[in-house]
Protein backbone atom coordinates (compact mmCIF):
# COMPACT_ATOMS: atom_id res chain seq x y z
CA UNK A 1 0.00 0.00 0.00
CA UNK A 2 2.95 2.33 -0.56
CA UNK A 3 3.07 4.08 -3.93
CA UNK A 4 6.06 3.95 -6.23
CA UNK A 5 8.34 6.96 -6.07
CA UNK A 6 7.12 10.10 -7.80
CA UNK A 7 7.87 13.82 -7.96
CA UNK A 8 5.30 16.26 -6.70
CA UNK A 9 4.69 19.62 -8.36
CA UNK A 10 2.28 22.19 -6.99
CA UNK A 11 1.75 25.03 -9.47
CA UNK A 12 0.17 28.23 -8.14
CA UNK A 13 -1.62 29.12 -11.37
CA UNK A 14 -3.47 27.21 -14.07
CA UNK A 15 -1.06 28.55 -16.73
CA UNK A 16 1.83 27.12 -14.79
CA UNK A 17 0.02 23.78 -14.46
CA UNK A 18 -0.59 23.66 -18.23
CA UNK A 19 3.07 24.48 -18.90
CA UNK A 20 4.26 21.76 -16.49
CA UNK A 21 1.88 19.23 -18.05
CA UNK A 22 3.18 20.20 -21.50
CA UNK A 23 6.74 19.54 -20.34
CA UNK A 24 5.93 16.17 -18.77
CA UNK A 25 2.97 14.96 -20.85
CA UNK A 26 3.95 11.30 -20.82
CA UNK A 27 5.13 10.97 -17.21
CA UNK A 28 2.73 13.23 -15.34
CA UNK A 29 -0.78 12.89 -13.97
CA UNK A 30 -2.98 15.70 -12.76
CA UNK A 31 -3.99 15.40 -9.10
CA UNK A 32 -7.41 16.86 -8.24
CA UNK A 33 -9.17 15.33 -5.21
CA UNK A 34 -7.09 12.19 -5.51
CA UNK A 35 -9.76 9.73 -4.40
CA UNK A 36 -9.39 7.58 -7.50
CA UNK A 37 -5.77 8.25 -8.43
CA UNK A 38 -4.13 7.88 -5.00
CA UNK A 39 -5.72 4.47 -4.22
CA UNK A 40 -4.64 3.26 -7.68
CA UNK A 41 -1.11 4.53 -6.97
CA UNK A 42 -1.02 2.82 -3.59
CA UNK A 43 -1.91 -0.47 -5.30
CA UNK A 44 0.71 0.39 -7.93
CA UNK A 45 -1.88 0.06 -10.66
CA UNK A 46 -0.96 3.63 -11.57
CA UNK A 47 2.66 4.70 -11.34
CA UNK A 48 2.98 8.24 -12.68
CA UNK A 49 6.47 9.64 -12.29
CA UNK A 50 5.15 13.13 -11.59
CA UNK A 51 2.01 14.43 -9.92
CA UNK A 52 0.83 17.94 -10.76
CA UNK A 53 -1.42 19.00 -7.90
CA UNK A 54 -4.14 21.50 -8.78
CA UNK A 55 -4.94 21.97 -5.09
CA UNK A 56 -2.87 25.15 -4.66
CA UNK A 57 -4.41 26.96 -7.60
CA UNK A 58 -6.82 29.60 -6.43
CA UNK A 59 -10.16 30.07 -8.04
CA UNK A 60 -10.80 26.67 -9.55
CA UNK A 61 -13.48 26.00 -6.97
CA UNK A 62 -16.71 27.96 -7.49
CA UNK A 63 -20.36 27.80 -8.44
CA UNK A 64 -21.34 30.92 -10.38
CA UNK A 65 -24.17 32.11 -12.57
CA UNK A 66 -23.56 33.99 -15.77
CA UNK A 67 -26.71 34.85 -17.68
CA UNK A 68 -28.65 31.60 -17.92
CA UNK A 69 -25.47 29.56 -17.49
CA UNK A 70 -24.25 27.85 -14.35
CA UNK A 71 -20.45 27.66 -14.20
CA UNK A 72 -18.73 25.22 -11.88
CA UNK A 73 -14.97 25.23 -11.30
CA UNK A 74 -13.30 21.88 -11.91
CA UNK A 75 -11.93 21.67 -8.34
CA UNK A 76 -15.35 22.16 -6.74
CA UNK A 77 -15.89 19.23 -4.37
CA UNK A 78 -18.89 16.91 -4.36
CA UNK A 79 -19.75 18.27 -0.91
CA UNK A 80 -19.80 21.86 -2.20
CA UNK A 81 -22.18 20.80 -4.97
CA UNK A 82 -24.31 18.69 -2.66
CA UNK A 83 -24.68 21.51 -0.13
CA UNK A 84 -25.16 24.44 -2.54
CA UNK A 85 -28.52 26.05 -1.75
CA UNK A 86 -28.49 27.87 -5.09
CA UNK A 87 -27.93 24.66 -7.07
CA UNK A 88 -30.77 22.98 -5.20
CA UNK A 89 -33.03 25.76 -6.46
CA UNK A 90 -31.91 26.06 -10.06
CA UNK A 91 -30.40 22.67 -10.90
CA UNK A 92 -31.33 20.09 -8.23
CA UNK A 93 -30.05 17.18 -10.31
CA UNK A 94 -26.41 18.03 -9.49
CA UNK A 95 -26.79 18.14 -5.67
CA UNK A 96 -28.99 15.03 -5.81
CA UNK A 97 -26.32 13.18 -7.78
CA UNK A 98 -23.36 14.46 -5.76
CA UNK A 99 -25.07 13.42 -2.50
CA UNK A 100 -25.08 9.80 -3.68
CA UNK A 101 -21.36 9.55 -4.43
CA UNK A 102 -19.22 7.25 -2.26
CA UNK A 103 -19.06 8.29 1.38
CA UNK A 104 -18.47 11.50 3.36
CA UNK A 105 -14.69 11.30 3.04
CA UNK A 106 -14.90 10.91 -0.72
CA UNK A 107 -17.40 13.75 -1.05
CA UNK A 108 -15.24 16.08 1.04
CA UNK A 109 -12.21 15.62 -1.20
CA UNK A 110 -13.46 14.36 -4.56
CA UNK A 111 -14.02 16.99 -7.26
CA UNK A 112 -16.38 17.30 -10.22
CA UNK A 113 -13.46 17.91 -12.60
CA UNK A 114 -11.52 14.94 -11.26
CA UNK A 115 -14.49 12.64 -11.66
CA UNK A 116 -15.22 13.75 -15.22
CA UNK A 117 -11.58 13.67 -16.37
CA UNK A 118 -11.05 10.23 -14.78
CA UNK A 119 -14.25 8.99 -16.43
CA UNK A 120 -14.76 5.89 -14.36
CA UNK A 121 -17.48 3.87 -16.15
CA UNK A 122 -19.48 3.69 -12.90
CA UNK A 123 -19.03 7.28 -11.69
CA UNK A 124 -22.26 9.16 -10.93
CA UNK A 125 -21.69 12.69 -12.21
CA UNK A 126 -21.16 11.77 -15.89
CA UNK A 127 -24.81 10.63 -16.09
CA UNK A 128 -26.05 13.99 -14.77
CA UNK A 129 -23.63 15.93 -16.98
CA UNK A 130 -24.98 14.14 -20.07
CA UNK A 131 -28.64 14.52 -19.04
CA UNK A 132 -28.06 18.27 -18.55
CA UNK A 133 -26.16 18.63 -21.86
CA UNK A 134 -23.26 20.34 -20.10
CA UNK A 135 -20.14 21.71 -21.74
CA UNK A 136 -16.60 21.15 -20.53
CA UNK A 137 -13.98 23.90 -20.84
CA UNK A 138 -10.50 22.45 -21.36
CA UNK A 139 -7.31 24.48 -21.35
CA UNK A 140 -4.09 23.42 -23.05
CA UNK A 141 -0.95 24.90 -24.55
CA UNK A 142 -2.99 26.27 -27.46
CA UNK A 143 -5.62 27.94 -25.32
CA UNK A 144 -9.15 26.98 -24.42
CA UNK A 145 -11.76 24.86 -26.12
CA UNK A 146 -15.27 23.78 -25.22
CA UNK A 147 -16.26 20.10 -25.43
CA UNK A 148 -19.90 19.02 -25.35
CA UNK A 149 -20.89 16.33 -22.85
CA UNK A 150 -21.92 13.95 -25.66
CA UNK A 151 -18.42 14.15 -27.16
CA UNK A 152 -16.51 14.22 -23.88
CA UNK A 153 -16.77 10.58 -22.79
CA UNK A 154 -14.94 8.50 -25.38
CA UNK A 155 -14.43 5.04 -23.85
CA UNK A 156 -13.49 3.32 -20.62
CA UNK A 157 -11.60 5.94 -18.57
CA UNK A 158 -10.92 7.82 -21.78
CA UNK A 159 -12.16 11.34 -22.48
CA UNK A 160 -11.83 13.82 -25.31
CA UNK A 161 -9.23 15.72 -23.28
CA UNK A 162 -5.81 15.70 -24.96
CA UNK A 163 -2.85 14.51 -22.91
CA UNK A 164 -1.74 18.13 -22.47
CA UNK A 165 -5.13 19.54 -21.52
CA UNK A 166 -6.65 20.27 -18.12
CA UNK A 167 -10.40 20.48 -17.45
CA UNK A 168 -11.03 23.95 -16.04
CA UNK A 169 -14.78 24.52 -15.87
CA UNK A 170 -18.16 22.85 -16.39
CA UNK A 171 -20.93 24.95 -17.96
CA UNK A 172 -24.58 24.07 -17.71
CA UNK A 173 -27.50 25.91 -19.23
CA UNK A 174 -29.83 26.36 -16.27
CA UNK A 175 -32.85 24.10 -16.66
CA UNK A 176 -36.14 25.89 -17.27
CA UNK A 177 -38.31 26.79 -14.31
CA UNK A 178 -40.57 23.90 -13.44
CA UNK A 179 -38.38 21.21 -14.96
CA UNK A 180 -38.33 17.88 -13.15
CA UNK A 181 -35.05 16.11 -12.43
CA UNK A 182 -33.95 12.93 -10.74
CA UNK A 183 -30.91 10.69 -10.32
CA UNK A 184 -31.43 7.13 -9.13
CA UNK A 185 -28.75 4.52 -8.75
CA UNK A 186 -28.22 1.01 -7.56
CA UNK A 187 -24.97 1.33 -5.59
CA UNK A 188 -22.49 -1.51 -5.41
CA UNK A 189 -22.78 -2.30 -1.69
CA UNK A 190 -19.02 -2.42 -1.06
CA UNK A 191 -17.72 0.44 -3.21
CA UNK A 192 -20.78 2.68 -3.57
CA UNK A 193 -20.11 2.93 -7.31
CA UNK A 194 -23.17 2.78 -9.55
CA UNK A 195 -23.99 -0.72 -10.79
CA UNK A 196 -26.48 1.30 -12.80
CA UNK A 197 -27.31 4.98 -12.46
CA UNK A 198 -29.87 6.98 -14.43
CA UNK A 199 -30.14 10.78 -14.49
CA UNK A 200 -33.25 12.37 -15.99
CA UNK A 201 -34.32 15.92 -16.67
CA UNK A 202 -37.77 16.67 -18.13
CA UNK A 203 -39.88 19.70 -18.98
CA UNK A 204 -43.61 19.78 -19.62
CA UNK A 205 -45.51 22.10 -21.93
CA UNK A 206 -48.65 23.94 -20.81
CA UNK A 207 -50.82 20.93 -21.56
CA UNK A 208 -48.64 18.72 -19.36
CA UNK A 209 -47.05 16.78 -22.23
CA UNK A 210 -43.31 16.17 -22.20
CA UNK A 211 -41.58 19.01 -24.04
CA UNK A 212 -37.95 18.00 -23.63
CA UNK A 213 -36.07 15.15 -22.05
CA UNK A 214 -32.46 14.43 -21.16
CA UNK A 215 -31.48 10.93 -20.03
CA UNK A 216 -27.90 10.02 -19.01
CA UNK A 217 -26.89 6.50 -17.99
CA UNK A 218 -23.82 5.34 -16.07
CA UNK A 219 -22.48 1.98 -14.86
CA UNK A 220 -24.09 0.09 -17.71
CA UNK A 221 -21.48 0.40 -20.47
CA UNK A 222 -17.78 1.23 -20.69
CA UNK A 223 -18.68 4.93 -20.54
CA UNK A 224 -21.63 7.07 -19.54
CA UNK A 225 -23.99 7.60 -22.47
CA UNK A 226 -27.11 9.44 -23.59
CA UNK A 227 -30.17 7.19 -23.98
CA UNK A 228 -31.43 8.80 -27.18
CA UNK A 229 -34.14 6.16 -27.69
CA UNK A 230 -35.64 6.85 -24.29
CA UNK A 231 -35.51 10.61 -24.85
CA UNK A 232 -37.30 10.27 -28.20
CA UNK A 233 -39.97 8.03 -26.62
CA UNK A 234 -40.62 10.59 -23.87
CA UNK A 235 -40.80 13.82 -25.89
CA UNK A 236 -44.39 14.52 -26.93
CA UNK A 237 -45.81 11.83 -24.64
CA UNK A 238 -48.10 12.56 -21.71
CA UNK A 239 -45.58 10.89 -19.34
CA UNK A 240 -48.14 8.30 -18.33
CA UNK A 241 -47.18 4.84 -17.17
CA UNK A 242 -47.27 3.36 -20.66
CA UNK A 243 -45.00 6.05 -22.13
CA UNK A 244 -42.54 5.76 -19.24
CA UNK A 245 -42.39 1.96 -19.55
CA UNK A 246 -41.84 2.23 -23.30
CA UNK A 247 -39.01 4.72 -22.78
CA UNK A 248 -37.38 2.65 -20.02
CA UNK A 249 -37.46 -0.45 -22.22
CA UNK A 250 -35.07 1.23 -24.68
CA UNK A 251 -32.55 2.39 -22.05
CA UNK A 252 -29.72 0.05 -23.07
CA UNK A 253 -30.53 -0.23 -26.79
CA UNK A 254 -27.47 -0.31 -29.00
CA UNK A 255 -25.11 -0.46 -26.03
CA UNK A 256 -22.49 -3.11 -25.27
CA UNK A 257 -23.29 -3.91 -21.64
CA UNK A 258 -20.76 -4.41 -18.84
CA UNK A 259 -20.66 -7.66 -16.95
CA UNK A 260 -18.67 -8.37 -13.81
CA UNK A 261 -18.75 -10.70 -10.81
CA UNK A 262 -21.40 -8.58 -9.11
CA UNK A 263 -23.80 -8.10 -11.99
CA UNK A 264 -23.86 -9.97 -15.28
CA UNK A 265 -24.71 -8.13 -18.47
CA UNK A 266 -28.26 -9.61 -18.42
CA UNK A 267 -28.85 -8.52 -14.83
CA UNK A 268 -27.50 -5.05 -15.58
CA UNK A 269 -29.84 -4.74 -18.54
CA UNK A 270 -32.76 -5.54 -16.27
CA UNK A 271 -31.55 -3.15 -13.55
CA UNK A 272 -31.06 -0.37 -16.08
CA UNK A 273 -34.67 -0.67 -17.22
CA UNK A 274 -36.00 -0.70 -13.64
CA UNK A 275 -33.91 2.30 -12.57
CA UNK A 276 -34.74 4.18 -15.76
CA UNK A 277 -38.44 3.68 -15.08
CA UNK A 278 -38.12 4.89 -11.50
CA UNK A 279 -35.94 7.87 -12.40
CA UNK A 280 -38.29 8.97 -15.18
CA UNK A 281 -41.30 8.57 -12.86
CA UNK A 282 -39.55 10.67 -10.19
CA UNK A 283 -38.60 13.39 -12.66
CA UNK A 284 -42.10 13.41 -14.17
CA UNK A 285 -43.71 13.80 -10.76
CA UNK A 286 -41.42 16.79 -10.05
CA UNK A 287 -42.00 18.53 -13.41
CA UNK A 288 -44.68 21.19 -13.29
Amino acid at each position, binding site marked *: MIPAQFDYLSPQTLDEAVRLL*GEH*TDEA*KILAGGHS*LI*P*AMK*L*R*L*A*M*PQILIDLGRIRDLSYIREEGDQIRIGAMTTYYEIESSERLREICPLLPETAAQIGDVQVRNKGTIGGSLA*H*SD*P*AADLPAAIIALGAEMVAVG*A*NGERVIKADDFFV*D*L*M*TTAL*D*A*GEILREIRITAPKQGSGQAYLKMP*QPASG*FAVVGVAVTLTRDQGGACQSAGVGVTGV*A*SKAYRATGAEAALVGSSLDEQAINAAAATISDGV*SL*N*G*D*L*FASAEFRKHLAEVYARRAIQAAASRAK
Partner: protein
Amino acid sequence: MKIEGTHELRASRDRVFKALTDPAVLQRSIPGCERLEQTAENSYSVTLRAGVGSIKGTFTGNVGLEDVQPPSHFRMGIDGKGQPGFLKGSGELDLEERDGATIVNYKGDVQVGGTIAGVGQRMIQGAAKMMASQFFTAIEAEAKTEANEPPPKHGFFRTALRWLSGWLHRTFKK
Protein backbone atom coordinates in the same frame (compact mmCIF):
# COMPACT_ATOMS: atom_id res chain seq x y z
CA MET B 1 -14.17 -14.48 -17.47
CA LYS B 2 -15.74 -15.03 -20.86
CA ILE B 3 -14.90 -12.56 -23.56
CA GLU B 4 -16.43 -12.51 -26.99
CA GLY B 5 -17.00 -10.10 -29.78
CA THR B 6 -17.36 -9.49 -33.48
CA HIS B 7 -15.46 -7.04 -35.62
CA GLU B 8 -16.01 -6.22 -39.28
CA LEU B 9 -12.80 -5.47 -41.15
CA ARG B 10 -13.00 -3.96 -44.62
CA ALA B 11 -10.29 -6.11 -46.16
CA SER B 12 -10.18 -9.53 -47.78
CA ARG B 13 -10.10 -12.60 -45.57
CA ASP B 14 -6.75 -13.82 -46.89
CA ARG B 15 -5.10 -10.53 -46.05
CA VAL B 16 -6.72 -10.32 -42.61
CA PHE B 17 -5.62 -13.85 -41.80
CA LYS B 18 -2.11 -13.11 -42.98
CA ALA B 19 -1.99 -9.95 -40.85
CA LEU B 20 -3.26 -11.79 -37.78
CA THR B 21 -0.53 -14.40 -38.02
CA ASP B 22 2.39 -12.15 -38.99
CA PRO B 23 4.65 -11.36 -36.00
CA ALA B 24 5.77 -8.00 -37.39
CA VAL B 25 2.15 -6.95 -37.92
CA LEU B 26 1.12 -8.19 -34.49
CA GLN B 27 3.88 -6.24 -32.82
CA ARG B 28 2.63 -3.04 -34.46
CA SER B 29 -1.05 -3.78 -33.86
CA ILE B 30 -1.30 -5.12 -30.32
CA PRO B 31 -1.96 -2.07 -28.10
CA GLY B 32 1.08 -1.39 -25.92
CA CYS B 33 3.20 -4.18 -27.41
CA GLU B 34 6.83 -3.40 -26.63
CA ARG B 35 8.43 -6.67 -27.68
CA LEU B 36 7.31 -9.71 -29.66
CA GLU B 37 9.78 -12.47 -30.49
CA GLN B 38 9.16 -15.74 -32.21
CA THR B 39 10.31 -18.64 -30.02
CA ALA B 40 9.08 -21.51 -32.21
CA GLU B 41 6.62 -21.94 -35.06
CA ASN B 42 3.39 -20.24 -34.00
CA SER B 43 4.81 -19.41 -30.59
CA TYR B 44 5.85 -15.97 -29.38
CA SER B 45 7.29 -14.31 -26.32
CA VAL B 46 5.77 -10.87 -25.67
CA THR B 47 6.08 -7.81 -23.45
CA LEU B 48 3.01 -5.59 -23.22
CA ARG B 49 2.60 -2.25 -21.58
CA ALA B 50 -1.16 -2.32 -21.39
CA GLY B 51 -3.73 -0.20 -19.64
CA VAL B 52 -6.47 2.38 -19.77
CA GLY B 53 -6.41 5.93 -18.44
CA SER B 54 -3.99 6.21 -15.54
CA ILE B 55 -4.03 2.46 -14.87
CA LYS B 56 -1.10 0.82 -16.63
CA GLY B 57 0.97 -2.26 -16.12
CA THR B 58 3.70 -4.22 -17.85
CA PHE B 59 3.04 -7.86 -18.61
CA THR B 60 5.39 -10.47 -20.01
CA GLY B 61 4.29 -13.82 -21.30
CA ASN B 62 3.74 -16.19 -24.17
CA VAL B 63 1.28 -16.29 -27.02
CA GLY B 64 0.74 -19.46 -28.98
CA LEU B 65 -1.34 -20.19 -32.06
CA GLU B 66 -2.86 -23.66 -32.43
CA ASP B 67 -5.19 -25.42 -34.80
CA VAL B 68 -4.24 -22.96 -37.56
CA GLN B 69 -6.57 -23.44 -40.57
CA PRO B 70 -5.86 -20.70 -43.10
CA PRO B 71 -7.71 -18.53 -43.86
CA SER B 72 -10.66 -19.13 -41.57
CA HIS B 73 -9.70 -20.26 -38.09
CA PHE B 74 -7.10 -20.45 -35.35
CA ARG B 75 -6.92 -20.83 -31.64
CA MET B 76 -4.86 -18.43 -29.53
CA GLY B 77 -3.52 -19.16 -26.08
CA ILE B 78 -2.05 -16.54 -23.77
CA ASP B 79 -0.24 -16.80 -20.51
CA GLY B 80 1.30 -13.78 -18.86
CA LYS B 81 2.12 -12.09 -15.65
CA GLY B 82 3.21 -8.70 -14.46
CA GLN B 83 3.27 -6.39 -11.48
CA PRO B 84 -0.53 -5.80 -11.46
CA GLY B 85 -1.50 -9.48 -11.72
CA PHE B 86 -1.58 -12.42 -14.08
CA LEU B 87 -3.73 -13.63 -16.92
CA LYS B 88 -4.13 -16.96 -18.63
CA GLY B 89 -6.59 -18.01 -21.23
CA SER B 90 -7.40 -19.10 -24.71
CA GLY B 91 -9.86 -18.28 -27.43
CA GLU B 92 -11.05 -19.22 -30.88
CA LEU B 93 -10.94 -16.81 -33.79
CA ASP B 94 -13.12 -17.42 -36.82
CA LEU B 95 -12.90 -15.38 -40.00
CA GLU B 96 -15.80 -15.20 -42.38
CA GLU B 97 -15.87 -13.46 -45.74
CA ARG B 98 -18.92 -11.31 -46.48
CA ASP B 99 -19.25 -8.83 -49.37
CA GLY B 100 -15.51 -8.31 -49.64
CA ALA B 101 -15.20 -7.61 -45.92
CA THR B 102 -14.07 -9.98 -43.20
CA ILE B 103 -16.10 -10.72 -40.10
CA VAL B 104 -13.90 -11.79 -37.21
CA ASN B 105 -15.67 -13.61 -34.38
CA TYR B 106 -13.68 -14.24 -31.24
CA LYS B 107 -14.72 -16.13 -28.19
CA GLY B 108 -12.57 -17.08 -25.25
CA ASP B 109 -12.18 -17.65 -21.58
CA VAL B 110 -9.58 -15.73 -19.61
CA GLN B 111 -8.60 -16.04 -15.97
CA VAL B 112 -7.28 -12.86 -14.42
CA GLY B 113 -5.77 -12.79 -10.94
CA GLY B 114 -3.76 -10.63 -8.57
CA THR B 115 -4.31 -6.95 -7.68
CA ILE B 116 -5.92 -6.10 -11.01
CA ALA B 117 -8.58 -8.77 -10.52
CA GLY B 118 -9.13 -7.90 -6.87
CA VAL B 119 -9.83 -4.21 -7.30
CA GLY B 120 -10.36 -3.80 -11.02
CA GLN B 121 -12.72 -6.68 -11.63
CA ARG B 122 -15.59 -4.47 -12.75
CA MET B 123 -13.34 -2.87 -15.40
CA ILE B 124 -11.62 -5.90 -16.88
CA GLN B 125 -14.29 -6.76 -19.42
CA GLY B 126 -14.50 -3.15 -20.59
CA ALA B 127 -10.72 -2.90 -20.87
CA ALA B 128 -10.59 -6.14 -22.86
CA LYS B 129 -13.27 -4.91 -25.27
CA MET B 130 -11.47 -1.59 -25.72
CA MET B 131 -8.13 -3.24 -26.46
CA ALA B 132 -9.76 -5.72 -28.86
CA SER B 133 -11.36 -2.84 -30.72
CA GLN B 134 -8.02 -0.97 -30.99
CA PHE B 135 -6.31 -4.16 -32.11
CA PHE B 136 -8.79 -4.96 -34.89
CA THR B 137 -8.79 -1.35 -36.09
CA ALA B 138 -5.02 -1.62 -36.46
CA ILE B 139 -5.26 -5.03 -38.16
CA GLU B 140 -7.75 -3.58 -40.64
CA ALA B 141 -5.31 -0.81 -41.55
CA GLU B 142 -2.52 -3.38 -41.89
CA ALA B 143 -4.58 -5.70 -44.08
CA LYS B 144 -5.48 -2.81 -46.40
CA THR B 145 -1.83 -1.86 -46.89
CA GLU B 146 -0.26 -3.20 -50.07
CA ALA B 147 2.95 -5.25 -49.82
CA ASN B 148 5.16 -2.55 -51.26
CA GLU B 149 3.77 0.27 -49.10
CA PRO B 150 5.26 1.31 -45.76
CA PRO B 151 3.35 -0.10 -42.78
CA PRO B 152 0.61 2.12 -41.32
CA LYS B 153 1.19 4.08 -38.13
CA HIS B 154 -1.27 3.54 -35.32
CA GLY B 155 -2.01 6.60 -33.23
CA PHE B 156 1.48 8.03 -33.67
CA PHE B 157 0.42 10.81 -36.00
CA ARG B 158 -1.77 12.43 -33.38
CA THR B 159 0.99 12.24 -30.78
CA ALA B 160 3.50 13.78 -33.16
CA LEU B 161 1.10 16.55 -34.11
CA ARG B 162 0.41 17.37 -30.49
CA TRP B 163 4.11 17.46 -29.69
CA LEU B 164 4.81 19.71 -32.67
CA SER B 165 2.03 22.16 -31.89
CA GLY B 166 3.10 22.35 -28.24
CA TRP B 167 6.71 22.89 -29.26
CA LEU B 168 5.80 25.63 -31.76
CA HIS B 169 3.67 27.33 -29.18
CA ARG B 170 6.39 27.24 -26.54
CA THR B 171 9.10 28.35 -28.95
CA PHE B 172 7.25 31.35 -30.31
CA LYS B 173 5.92 32.45 -26.96
CA LYS B 174 9.45 33.16 -25.70
